[in-house]
């Protein structure tokens, strides 16, 4: 069983999805879906433990030999990302049954489960696979199911948001496909580790012989890939799809996608830049790290500022997410051990914080219906536990010590100062203050104002919704102090990435 472990996290959700369509019975489907998600989580835990003891795990699909067959390759980074993606998938789905009662019509619940499982399978696949085209396929699987999930929102704007995301996401994925195609053209392989070797071999292009990686084709491929990936991870200025998609999707969907989809795209960037192209190419030959630094800093400041002016709290958190992606990319662009650790651990920390915050928003949506700032007036008195969880999540966004957000900020600032780029460090710190403004706006309204008359009779959210929220927010506090399994693992993953392919 253990040799097949790399495939199982993809297999279980992918097989369960059509099962849900066939069974249709709402409760049974929910039960199966939740069980499958938790099993997947357990599998990824086992996988991480295996990778920590035995090193990188490889698996040849169908027994076909590498590099002609598709290889699944799980190293420390993959295992880490798998762990928190499936963990959050399981927690959010456990939260979902009660939440979608109010937001999605009953006859569509089984479809929600199906799409959810497909999305999870796709995300697992992206992280596990070691083949580039396979990556594209799984990317599209997860994206298509994400579009469908978003369109399940109860406003008609969910449909247009899903459509806009579809168009932009497909363009992004197609750019990635072009990039992969150009690389295949030059090297003849689609396997990631093989690609790394072949890029460093000579090819004859247009009569003269060059090392493949120095050709213009590969540079163009890199450009297409980076634009496509940036679109998928909502790096400024390719972030326009995100606010609408997060705002109008059902609460559980927003929580799931906010915590996973963009992080997996950051993972894809890490894979391409470090495992396939290698740092000397991306950072020494091309000024990629300068580009990324500038774009991420602009994104952080612009998105945080935009968040301050939002009236819809979900939209505010969406802009906050765009800023937080900026932090992750900033960590990558700093390309040192601390920078990369910061970027990778922020994937994890932000997933916990944002997941928890959107689950708290789901609790509010369950009781209040609408999520404008006005609706949250005085809610601190009526829904104290939910609001307290929200405040803790907000403190995590600001980066207060003892929250997970602080850990990421520490590594980023340290990495920036190591390079002597103190303006970058100052900007990161000032952006925390921007986060303070938009978080505290909500805190003040929730605790100081008199409750809105429309919501005079609301009570605390039900326990089934509070517990998953509490788990994620609690985790963000725990991992703000005990970081052996978050920053520690991220550090090991960063070391492996910086060494090159192992």
């Amino acid at each position, binding site marked *: 069983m253990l040799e097949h472990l790399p495939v199982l996290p993809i297999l279980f959700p992918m097989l369960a999805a059509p099962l849900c369509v066939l069974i249709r019975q709402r409760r049974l489907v929910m039960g199966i879906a939740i069980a499958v998600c938790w099993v997947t989580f357990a599998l990824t835990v086992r996988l991480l433990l295996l990778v920590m003891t035995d090193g990188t795990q490889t698996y040849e699909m169908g027994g076909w030999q590498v590099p002609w067959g598709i290889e699944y390759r799980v190293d420390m980074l993959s295992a880490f990302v798998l762990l928190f993606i499936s963990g959050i998938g399981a927690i959010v789905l456990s939260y979902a049954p009660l939440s979608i009662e109010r937001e999605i019509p009953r006859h569509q619940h089984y479809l929600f489960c199906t799409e959810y499982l497909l999305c999870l399978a796709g995300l697992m696949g992206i992280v596990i696979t070691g083949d580039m085209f396979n990556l594209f396929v799984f990317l599209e699987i997860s994206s298509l199911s994400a579009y469908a999930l978003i369109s399940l929102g109860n406003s008609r704007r969910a449909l247009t948001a899903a459509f806009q995301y579809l168009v932009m996401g497909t363009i992004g994925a197609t750019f990635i496909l072009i990039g992969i195609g150009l690389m295949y053209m030059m090297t003849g392989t689609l396997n990631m580790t093989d690609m790394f070797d072949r890029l460093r071999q000579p090819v004859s292009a247009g009569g003269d012989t060059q090392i493949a990686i120095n050709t213009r084709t590969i540079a163009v491929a890199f450009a297409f890939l980076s634009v496509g990936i940036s679109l998928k991870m909502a790096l400024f200025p390719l972030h326009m799809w995100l606010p609408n998609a997060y705002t109008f999707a059902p609460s559980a969907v927003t929580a799931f996608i906010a915590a996973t989809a963009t992080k997996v795209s950051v993972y894809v960037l890490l894979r391409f830049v470090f495992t396939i192209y290698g740092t000397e190419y991306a950072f020494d030959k091309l000024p990629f790290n300068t580009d990324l630094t500038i774009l991420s800093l602009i994104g952080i400041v612009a998105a945080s500022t935009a968040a301050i002016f939002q009236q819809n709290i979900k939209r505010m958190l969406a802009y906050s997410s765009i800023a937080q992606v900026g932090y992750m990319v900033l960590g990558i662009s700093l390309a040192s051990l601390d920078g990369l650790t910061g970027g990778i651990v922020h994937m994890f920390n932000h997933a916990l914080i944002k997941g928890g915050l959107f689950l708290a928003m789901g609790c509010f949506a369950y009781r209040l219906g609408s999520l404008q700032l006005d609706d949250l007036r005085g809610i601190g008195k009526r829904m104290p536990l939910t609001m307290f969880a929200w405040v803790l999540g907000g403190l995590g966004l600001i980066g207060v010590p003892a929250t997970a957000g602080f*850990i990421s900020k520490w590594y980023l600032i340290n990495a920036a100062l190591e390079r002597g780029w103190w303006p970058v460090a100052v900007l990161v710190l000032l952006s925390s203050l921007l986060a303070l403004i938009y978080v505290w706006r909500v805190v003040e309204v929730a605790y100081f104002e008199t409750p809105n008359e429309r919501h005079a009779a609301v009570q605390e959210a039900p326990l089934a919704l509070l517990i998953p929220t509490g788990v994620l927010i609690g985790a963000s506090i725990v991992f703000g*102090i*005990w970081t052996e399994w978050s920053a520690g693992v991220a550090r090991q993953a960063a070391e492996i990435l910086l060494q090159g392919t192992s």
Partner: protein
Amino acid sequence: MNPETSIILALLLPLIACLSIAVFDKRANIRELFTLACAGTLLCVVGSLASHVFAGARPEWSLPFEVVSGLGIAFQVEPLGMLFALVASSLWIVTTVYSIGYMRGHDEQHQTRFFACFAIAIFAAMGAAMAKNMLTLFFFYEILTFSTYPLVTHHGTETARRGGRTYLSILLFTSVSMLLLAIVWTWNVAGTLDFRPGGILSGKADDSLLGVLLALYVFGTGKAALMPFHRWLPAAMVAPTPVSALLHAVAVVKVGVFTVMKVAVYIFGTDLLTRSGISLWLMYMAGGTVLLGSLVALTKDNLKARLAYSTISQLSYIVLGAMLANSLGVLGGSMHIAMHAFGKITLFFCAGAIYVAAHKTEISDMQGIGRRMPVTLSAFFLGSLSVIGLPPFGGSWSKWYLALGAAEAHQYPLIAVLMISSLLNIAYLMPVVIRGFFFAPPDGPERPEIQEAPLMCVIPLSVTALSGVALFIYADTIWRWLEPVASGQPW
């Protein structure tokens, strides 16, 4: 008791108090009993720890895992921190008794939240006092900021909200953009964040860099209320007086100046500072704050506002001592932590007592109040003498040592600053006493029912007022305790 256990208990007791307060939300008397029990136990624990530390031991304890980059949450008690812990824990009991009297006398809302946040603030102060490295100190510094926000905005009114906003924004702006930057930078340069005698930065970077770093630390410690980052202190006066008393005369501001002192002595080291002269301009900034704070205090009619600016001024004495960085300066500054705490808390207690009993906040209204509230106003008088720095009150010793330290460093203008500020202190504190005792009460609808404040308010303020005398007598002991800090010997 094992010193390590004492450290753990000192941290746990305020948290246990917070939990029990939350549990016994409805049963006010049991709730208060728990706070008092925990506070009393804390004082005993801290006292036992003190007996080890002042005998030369340096007990430590740390969490067994790292938080970032090889750094962890670690505690090690040394004399300066021990003194601060003693002050904070002894004043917790006193303030709790006072708060009970005040909150009940005033029939305040949300008492559970008040006492619970108080306990967390004390937890943060204990953690900061015992911190072994700058990261731990920073953790507790920020926890203190956030745990005191509900206390500052306790009344929930629009003014409270705005006051809270000023409070939070200035404190977080300084701590995030300057203090955290300084901490990470120190980590980068020195490779460690531990507090060590002699500092960790000597020889690690050139002086101009260290100068910037020091400035970032001193201005980044917003809680030390060095101008221009002092506005949060008067803004925080919207809080109920027990909050102002403990937190803004003792815990919050003292964590601030304590941080500055620790940075000066254990991160930079007194030798480095005196040799390089990078603290010179900061010395003058502190001196300026001393004068400006006192001058502004003169203009304030609201008693709490006047006391707030007086605090700003007094805090800069301690910063001055730290920046002088010679042994007398450090000694004087550290002693002033204790002296000022007891003196100022007396003054705030009195202000609160006057508010509870007579509902007066403006000094111009307080004519003749001494006739009705003799104990309160006498305590105010004694507290003022300590703050002004006259014998036989403790404040005189700390000022004396600061002046000696300034003389030793040949900073004669600073001695003048100290003298002038003492005169200004007299000028803004004495009128309150004089008006209260010697002026006739204004005619008109006299409130004959003005009596002395409730007993639970009067006892604490008398205790702290008389402590000023005790501190004067035992200043020698405190001097001996603090000597290892000032002399910079290795542990």
